[in-house]
């Protein structure tokens, strides 16, 4: 039931912009809780890598005196990976196209993260 609700939030998030290619909710231990990923994408790797990156981001923000972590953004020539906390114990990861309008995506991701935090 909860997984369905989370999937529904993710489906809605993916639908807010054509630039969002995939999204997932992951526990801070790296296990996928719910996801809307393209076929062929390894759920376990997306989950573990996202949680690891967020953990490193957390430590980096702390070590370099940047305050509480809001998000981790990775840019590659084939697109973006955006990770943010959705509550204290889970991570929302979004994959977006290279020409994505980040401002809008940030806003949608923030809203989705808040909804996910409530559900969890």
């Amino acid at each position, binding site marked *: 039931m909860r997984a369905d609700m989370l999937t529904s939030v993710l489906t809605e998030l993916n639908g807010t912009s054509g630039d969002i290619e995939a999204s997932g909710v992951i526990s*801070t*231990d*790296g*296990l996928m809780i719910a996801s809307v990923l393209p076929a062929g994408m*390894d759920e*376990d*790797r997306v*989950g*573990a*890598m996202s*949680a*690891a990156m967020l*953990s*490193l981001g*957390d*430590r980096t923000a*702390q070590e370099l005196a940047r305050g509480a972590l809001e998000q981790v953004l990775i840019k590659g020539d084939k697109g973006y990976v955006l990770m943010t906390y959705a509550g204290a114990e889970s991570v929302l990861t979004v994959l977006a196209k290279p020409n994505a309008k980040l401002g809008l995506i940030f806003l949608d991701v923030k809203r989705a993260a808040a909804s996910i935090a409530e559900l969890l």
Partner: protein
Amino acid sequence: MAQNFNELIMYSKTFSGLTPELEVCLKDIAPVITPHLKQVTDSFYEQLATIPAAEKYLAGRIEHLKAAHLKWMINLFELDVDAQFAEGMYKVGDIHVKVNLPVEFMAGAMTLINTEIIKLVIDKMGSDLDKCSKALQAINAVTGLALMIMQQSYQESSIAEELEKFLKISGMSRTLFTNLAKAYN
């Protein structure tokens, strides 16, 4: 990770060539050799004292180290070379990591020890070539086996220590690290 000492000792024996016959030989020569091992220990630490890099590991604790070293050498001759023996040698390697002793110290030290023991064996048994030859084979095999186990433990303890450091720095939990590793198996 829990170590299977039965497997470890069997595996180490295949490499060191420590046969049951040589194990018996070690116990046979123990009464002749062990009373003189204190000289080997003293000589070993005298040589260590000439190595500048060893100084910081010896300062203020020579007597304690000598006692542990002597006990370790006596064990090579008196104990059954079984799983318990492997566990003891494994702990030695682990301790060397905990005191940050460089890895080459173990192999280097074993060479120095062997040199001293060879002198001792030749001195005590040189008149009986067969006995002397078998004793040297047995000693070479058991010290080689001990070194192999200690180095394996050293390596595993070093990796575990490095991982702990990485987890602490990165803020990753052990569970997350395990899940990350599993995802790439």
